[in-house]
């Protein structure tokens, strides 16, 4: 469990974010610290408005950091980098571009070789089950399909770290589960370092190696829980008693608003040993 400095892909150190509107100051994130190992899938779980998206955007260099420090691959995060892929809540596909051209959009922006990446794009399209939809426009796709395209777009330029901001929250429950599985398939194949923000307890436990629980007041991480299920994750893991017990524990944490602990305060909680 002890990580060496070299293994750490993301290092968040006592980060605060204060929005200053001139009249008043709002603390969106108050003193958050955690680390993500290379190849690890970490979910930040919290109610809406707890600052988790802000935290993620700071990791992507898309929001300024008020105080504290975020290091990615050993270098301080000050502005966006091409080694970090970001997926947003909204697929935000460009409506005039076909599925294939949307996926190749990052390649165009980064001025990389189009021909070789087109092959990769087609592989990704097959993988998320969109074969035959390459030339369709976004308005011809369902919400779930659009988010699949967004996954491909985030992966096509091969970033080593993937930041995802509630990417499936706009989808219905059934599509959402499907998307989770599609994401697992891809992630298990490419094993990117992933930081995934969500307000769905099930989603967090299904997907992640570790769940960081964030609360609104204080807007910080109150618990750091290792998910005990092995990889590749069994698709029916969601039906096990252990899974539901862990979800129940997380729910009570979010409802009470605080776990009374901070990450690093003690040994990581094992859900199997919980008495309450």
């Amino acid at each position, binding site marked *: 469990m002890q990580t060496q400095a070299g293994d750490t892909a993301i290092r968040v150190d006592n980060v605060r974010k204060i929005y200053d509107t001139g009249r008043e100051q709002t603390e969106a994130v108050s003193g958050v610290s955690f680390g993500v190992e290379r190849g690890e899938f970490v979910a930040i779980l919290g109610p809406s408005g707890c600052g988790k998206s802000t935290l993620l955007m700071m990791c992507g260099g898309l929001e300024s950091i008020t105080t504290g420090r975020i290091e990615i691959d050993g270098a301080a995060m000050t502005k966006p980098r091409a080694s970090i892929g*970001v997926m947003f809540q909204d697929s935000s596909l460009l409506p005039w571009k076909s599925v294939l051209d949307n996926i190749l959009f990052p390649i165009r922006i980064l001025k990389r070789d189009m021909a070789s990446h087109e092959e990769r794009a087609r592989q990704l399209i097959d993988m998320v089950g969109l074969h035959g939809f390459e030339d369709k426009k976004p308005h011809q796709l369902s919400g779930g399909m659009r988010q699949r395209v967004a996954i491909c777009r985030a992966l096509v330029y091969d970033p080593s770290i993937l930041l995802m901001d509630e990417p499936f929250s706009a989808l219905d429950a059934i599509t959402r589960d499907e998307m989770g599985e599609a994401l697992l398939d891809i992630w298990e194949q490419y094993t990117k370092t992933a930081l995934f923000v969500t307000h769905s307890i099930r989603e967090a436990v299904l997907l992640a190696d570790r769940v960081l629980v964030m609360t609104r007041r204080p807007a910080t991480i109150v618990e750091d829980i290792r998910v005990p299920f092995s990889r590749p994750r069994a698709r029916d893991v969601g039906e096990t008693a252990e899974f539901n017990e862990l979800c129940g524990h997380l729910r009570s944490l979010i409802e009470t608003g605080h776990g009374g602990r901070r990450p690093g305060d003690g040994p990581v909680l094992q859900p199997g040993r919980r008495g309450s």
Partner: protein
Amino acid sequence: MSVAASEGPARVSLRPALVKGWKRNLPWMLPVGTALATLLLWEIVVRVFSVPQVILPPPSAIGAEFVRIMPLLLQHASQTGMESLVALLLAATLGAVIAGVMASIPLARDVLQPNLVALQLIPKIALAPMFIIWLGIDSSSRLAFAVFLSFFPIVIAASAGLAQADETAIRLCRSLTASPLQTFFRVRVPFALPHFFNGLRIASTMAVIGVIVAEFISSRVGLGHYILYASSRMETTGIFAALLMLCIVGLGLFGGVVLIERLVRDRYLR
């Protein structure tokens, strides 16, 4: 269940073929039919009530006059059409550049936007004589006035379009380390193009209005001049023939804009 499913399509397959043929042509048949019916009604009313030609000539007389003075009308129309086209091109360039500057520089937007909206409220037609005073009676004053009239819809539409680009798409560009120029031309401009062309379509009619009004005041050629000349001689049929020619000029300009929009959509938006 299975019987109904197999019977259903077989029974309806005959009629839709006929109905479909009708329905497919309905979008153009309805408006064209309405226009023709109106012309017919006009003709009948004028003939039945013996309306004098000087008040309202029948469409048939206008058509005959149109053909008779065609060479003269074409001469005037080429002047009016050319000036409208140049004015529209100038207005499009000016409007796009100003909208682009306003979208890229917040200070410029804060300074210009309210003033543009305020200027929009002036009845700009009333300023036509001022342009003659400032720029004289040659083509430059007519062009300037037509540009002045037609550039507002372009600038307003284009800057609205540029501001309407999907915020997440712009964030995506930032996360991809896109340069401001890349973001502008790859995301903002494509999002703005439909709005820009809406503005351009409105402007194409405004440009013609601008040139005609300026011709009313100062010109010795052009359809505006001809209409004024014909009206001074009570040649109502000639006025209508000139109006018909004016419609063709306006349609040509409008059609050109639509054509360019298609071209841009196919080439640029890929």
